[in-house]
């Protein structure tokens, strides 16, 4: 499908056509004729040929899941990850509480306090994944790109509390310092041309 076709929203006129289906026969003779034509048309053999052709072509589409995996799109919204700042490795989360506020299923719970540098410190942060609907609002609202959705969709544990803790979601500090933490380019992330689009704040008023 070309892009023009795709952008033409007038779908009713471009891709649809009427299939020529004859009316059901009403007379007895008509029914006999229909049965005869269906019998001798050989459509059953067309069906046989189609599946046989696929078998000898051997064009297999199976993904052998645990060994092979399909790539996950960048905007895929799976289990959350808490990011760190590059180089310093400090947690990005500033404890502003916006994600807790916006979460529509009320599943983020956090406690904060001021640390010795009068900086807000998150002491307790959990997401109840049993209630999370993976809407992505928390990632979108976060001003620091601290909470993001990662690509991790395989979650196995005997308790779902096991992967909801802040420390589990947090990037390991060595990954952040060595720069291997993957920057999030999905929901709420900075888009490539952000510099041109930002307007300077008029400070005059």
């Amino acid at each position, binding site marked *: 499908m070309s892009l023009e076709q795709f952008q033409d929203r007038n779908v009713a006129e471009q891709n649809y056509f009427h299939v020529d289906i004859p009316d059901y026969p009403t007379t007895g003779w008509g029914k006999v004729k229909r049965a005869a034509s269906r019998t001798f048309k050989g459509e059953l053999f067309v069906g046989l040929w189609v*599946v046989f052709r696929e078998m000898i072509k051997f064009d297999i589409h*199976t993904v052998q899941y645990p060994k092979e995996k399909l790539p996950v799109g960048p905007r895929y919204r799976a289990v959350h990850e808490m990011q760190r700042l590059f180089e310093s490795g400090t947690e990005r989360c500033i404890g502003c509480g916006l994600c807790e506020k916006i979460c529509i299923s009320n599943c983020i719970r956090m406690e904060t306090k001021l640390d010795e540098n009068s900086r807000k410190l998150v002491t307790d942060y959990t997401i109840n994944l049993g209630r999370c609907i993976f809407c992505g609002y928390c990632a979108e609202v976060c001003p620091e790109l601290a909470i993001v959705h990662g690509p991790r969709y395989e979650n196995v544990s005997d308790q779902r509390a096991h992967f909801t803790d802040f420390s589990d979601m947090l990037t390991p500090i060595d990954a952040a310092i060595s720069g291997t933490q993957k920057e999030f380019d999905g929901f709420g992330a900075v888009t490539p041309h952000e510099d041109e689009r930002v307007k300077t704040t008029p400070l005059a008023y």
Partner: protein
Amino acid sequence: MDIAFLIETVVKIVVILLVFSALAGFGTYFERKVLAFMQRRLGPMHVGPYGLLQIAADGIKLFTKEDIVPQNVVGPIFKIAPVITAATAFMAAAAIPFMPSFTMFGYEVHPILADINIGILYILGVMGIGLYGPLLGGLASANKWALISTARAASIFISYEVITGLALLAPLMMVGSLSLIDFNNYQVGGIASWIVWSQPVAFVLFVIAGFAETGRTPFHLVANDHEIIDGFGTEYSGMRWGLFFIGEYANMFFISFVIAILFLGGYGDGSGLGALALLAKVSFIFFFFLWTRAAWPDVRPDQLMWLCWKVLMPIAVINIVITGIVMMF
């Protein structure tokens, strides 16, 4: 009755039971692979090389599963029903010549349990009794899906059995015997003498009836998974369900043998090549069973009855009449 005959018969019974139970298992593997390839999948791949040991895994699972007899079922009937299906499937095999006779250690072996002179009648009759498995199992299950499946089984039963009998009548008139060995000997003269050429209509009718008999797509109505769960098998678990399964697949193999011997020349002149040819024919018919499952839709029960009574039965009768007239002059 001398001892040698007894020993020979017991050995034959054991061999048939073992070979076809194993084949039934292997048939499921084969079916899954063929269906998978036709649908661009790989099928079982994880247990063993190319999933070959999947049969073993399934077997262990079936054998070791808890045998559940649910509440409200009619216990004895519920328990005996799968045995009927499996047992009759294997009993039918008694009159099938699987191979030409051969000599082993100076002793002539006939790979047929009982060459009775009413072989076909016996096979069809016993396979017909096999339908009591689904009937009784479904009725005793105290489950609505099973009940629907039983009703379907009854309606199918009264439809296809007519076709089976009438379709076979015309070849029977030509051969003049009910023994499968006589059928085979009738077609000994190579491909040109196969009954399928002289009785093509009977062949098609019998294959259609065979599909209904074994309950394969397009007549997969009794245990139609996507309509009525597993039909009569819904309440069964473990090895009881496994017996139904073995019965179904053994039936498929035996029907394939019967079709190959009746219409496609059987093992021909009885040489080793003929035996191989018989195996090839049986394999192809079995493959055809799987092939149609991938390609064709299922019909409704009323459509099957319509087909059997209003279309196939008149055709079969006309076929018999024409055969009679031709034989008379």
